[in-house]
């Protein structure tokens, strides 16, 4: 077994484990479709790493004449992982910015919200008593 196979299998296993765990725990947004996509993407990578000859079957089906070699596969995987990591980080930062902006907006309007809340409460009480 080559080193790249161990790395790919390890990464795929972790991603598959996380996907299955999130689905089993019924975490928000974990649908059967999402699990299926994860199984295909990461499972496919793992499968190709363990059985490199599988690409020959794929190559035959897809009409590609030559086999994918390990370097190309590793290159693609590396780029894919880098993009994956970068986009995840950007998304996390975006979410944090939104959360901060939201908190700031609500804090700034806190006084007005409290006034309105008291006003609504008073009106409700008035309606109930009358």
């Amino acid at each position: 077994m080559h080193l790249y196979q161990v790395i790919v299998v390890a990464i795929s296993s972790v991603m598959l484990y996380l996907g299955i765990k999130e689905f089993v725990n019924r975490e928000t947004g974990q649908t059967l479709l999402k699990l299926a996509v994860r199984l295909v993407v990461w499972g496919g990578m793992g499968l190709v790493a363990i059985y490199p000859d599988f690409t020959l079957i794929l190559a035959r089906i897809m009409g590609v004449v030559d086999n994918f070699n390990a370097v190309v596969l590793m290159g693609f995987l590396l780029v894919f992982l880098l993009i994956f990591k970068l986009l995840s980080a950007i998304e996390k930062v975006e979410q944090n910015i939104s959360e901060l902006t939201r908190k700031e907006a609500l804090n700034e309007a806190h006084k007005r919200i409290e006034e309105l809340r008291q006003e609504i409460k008073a009106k409700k009480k008035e309606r109930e008593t009358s």
Partner: protein
Amino acid sequence: MNTVIVIPVYNEAKVIGEVIEGVRAQGFEHVVVVDDGSRDDSFVVASAHDALTLRLKINRGKGAAVKTGIMAANLLDADVVVTMDGDGQHDPADIRPLITPILAGRSDVVLGSRLLKREAMPFKKVIANRIGNVLTWLFYGLLVSDSQSGFRAYSRYAALIIDTKADKYEYDSKVIREIKNNRLRFTEVPVHTRYTEYASTKKTKQGLINGLITLYRMIWKLIA
């Protein structure tokens, strides 16, 4: 019942005042306007019309603005929360039919649908909406007639339980997912759409490019 109307705005200074007055004319006093980092006077105009106006200092997208407005409505102990666009394309006269199923205790979420009564909807928009509906169904498992409509009503329970991190236009589809995941009772009510010159010529409306970005975000969330 305390009904709070949430209106997200981005550069709508020209029409937001009219929209707020239209809502008030229907008997809804409490209006929350969320200014999503506008570069014009939207914030000033909305404040001048005595709406509770929140300002997101950076433009964060429609989803982020709507979520902020719903949080403010929850702080105001709203029994029903209605969300509608700030460009005047939604008719405030539709608010009452929209909240009726919630007041009657029949639904947790009511989706305003522009396609149940199509009227003057441009053909291009009809096709785009149908594609949006099919994609929403494929990704989130619930088929509705107008998955991209921002004109919606939520019960207090739904407004508290619906939670999504979507900041941009995919927010509307994510709410559909939340309805399915939380097994909320929902219904669709036909709403009128006013395709004014202002609303249809606005640059920031969801076009082909934004639609593709939304699709990309939905696919990304599937594998990430």
